[in-house]
């Protein structure tokens, strides 16, 4: 079991958002988390990444056998957890390429590996940028500085591809993307799929799942998993909306 969340409750600013959430993700699987606004989807992603202000009140989260909740955000990242932000932050003055390299080296160090060779690194980044249809000029720009919404999302996926995490939590990576950009992002995510990686795909809409086919689909409602199923559940949600799931829960 790669990720095991048991009976997790969490508050944000004193407000209960997650209320007894249980979810397991095996290596090699892609799980989609869907749900209406305010159901706790983004909160789940921040709780997993360790964002300050998101307090776990009960339950447990185990990631590859380790208690994730005892780790600082940077330790979680080095352990192989990646959060793709819904709203990526702009950091003028820090280059994209610097951040990428620092992130890769932090992960390599945690794995007991030497720092990445500068030439090989650049080759790798260039190849991934090509896949994401990003111009190389993005490398020398400040992190997300002046990027459009779609460019920011591509940049998140680029970071993920370069860092090669074990578990990627992608928070509404599809929001704000036109159909062409959606395909590019999906191609990036699919290229990372492998038997030893997991993906938690948080999304509002079924359309992303046409391009990234999930192994399981979960509906999050009122802070817990209200229903789980295979990819056909997403199609059903698209037709019928969320109310029937919430009422039945």
């Amino acid at each position, binding site marked *: 079991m790669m990720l095991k969340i048991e009976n997790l409750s969490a508050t944000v600013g004193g407000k209960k958002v997650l209320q007894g959430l249980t979810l397991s993700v095996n290596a090699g699987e892609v799980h989609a988390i869907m749900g209406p606004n305010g159901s706790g989807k983004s909160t789940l992603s921040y709780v997993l990444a360790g964002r300050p202000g998101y307090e776990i009140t009960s339950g447990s989260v185990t990631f590859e056998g380790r208690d994730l909740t005892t780790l600082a955000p*940077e330790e979680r990242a080095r352990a192989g957890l990646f959060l793709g932000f819904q709203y990526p932050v702009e950091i003028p003055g820090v280059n994209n390429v610097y*951040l990428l390299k620092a992130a890769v080296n*932090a992960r390599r160090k945690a794995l007991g590996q030497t720092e990445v060779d500068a030439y090989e690194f650049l080759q790798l980044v260039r190849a991934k940028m090509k896949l994401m249809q990003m111009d190389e000029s993005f490398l020398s720009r400040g992190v997300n500085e002046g990027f459009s919404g779609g460019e920011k999302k591509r940049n998140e996926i680029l970071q993920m591809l370069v860092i090669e995490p074990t578990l990627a939590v992608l928070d509404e990576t599809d929001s704000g993307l036109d159909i062409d950009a959606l395909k590019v992002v999906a191609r990036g995510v699919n290229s990372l799929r492998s038997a030893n990686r997991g993906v938690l795909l948080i999304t509002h809409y079924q359309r992303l799942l046409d391009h990234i086919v999930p192994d399981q689909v979960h509906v999050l409602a009122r802070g817990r998993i209200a229903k789980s199923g295979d990819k056909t559940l997403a199609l059903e949600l698209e037709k019928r909306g969320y109310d029937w799931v919430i009422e039945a829960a």
Partner: protein
Amino acid sequence: MTAAFPDTRDENWRYANLRPLAKARPEAPAGVALPSLPDPPPLEGYQPWVFVDARYLRHSPAPGGHEFATRLDARAAGDAFAGMLDAEIAAAGVDFALARMNARRGDEVLHIAVPDGEHAAIDVRFHALSAGGTGTSYPRLQVQLGRHARLDLAERHLGAGAPDPAVNAAVDVSVGAGATLTHVRIQDCAEQASVFDTLVANVAEHGQYRLRTITLGAVSSRTTAFVKLAGRAARCDFIAASVANGIQTHDFFAEIDHAAPEAATREIFRGIATARGKLAFNGKMIVRENAHDADSDQSLKTLLTGSGAEAAARPQLEIYTDRVKARHGATTGKLDDQMLFYLLSRGIDRQQAQALLQWAFVEDAISQVELAPLRQHIESLVAARLNEVSSLDGLVNRS
């Protein structure tokens, strides 16, 4: 100490720490044995001039053979500068007290006069050798640019052995019509140094004064600057950056006087106070009645990263005409939590992430230093102060 000496009850001096200067002995002794001087990277195409305790040590011939800089006796310098500064000093009172002291006690002046249409590049280094207990040094620069002349000037104040030198510098600038002065000032004196400087500039019509001030050293520093945009469409670009670590106090007072139509200013300050560091930037903009269509833009930002750190960024506007564009913004804040979390979520150490964000903050100003080798030198000095930024490789845009 004369009666006209400033103290912290004066509004323009309330953040300044004047005690070290009051304690220091008046004059640095001549002929102190020279230690090996720190050797900052030479600037290609610039003529170097080196002073120790404000006394001439050496210089190289000017590239191209045109000597635009000369050494003048301090007493003669006032005449050479056509009395411009003296008239200002006489009128302005306490804010010029330190410059008056410099004029009275200094030995010599480096006088740079670039004639009409000529171009020069000069790198002046002032090394402070004597300890404050031994004596204060009084470096002085006078700069005169003729019509459509250009000068690229680096002015560096550096340490040289003594842990606690005292420096009271003065710079007088006259930018002629259509002339451009690019003036990069770096203060990187010893940690316990006390450094004071007064800059007075007059910019004629269509003249441009591009001033970049980087303040890193000294336990206590105070920069006082008066820039008069005296001619139509005169322009000043005033970019300042400072990092106050430990118990350092860096205080700035900058007054820019828009005294002619279409005078324009862009003023940017980025300062970081860490630990118990203190920072103050008081930016005063005056727009005179006749300065219609003047344009002034101020952005003063300070960042506090220490529990005992203090900062004050104060824009002041005095506007006497309706036809003016004046924008100003001032913030004092802490590191952005969202940015910090973003970096942490990529596996970057907390300390390194904090240093990176500090770097990014101050780089906003440093990136405005046009000359690449000088900017890189400044960046490495700043990185060394933000000690978790161990390598600039890839961090800085080299383009």
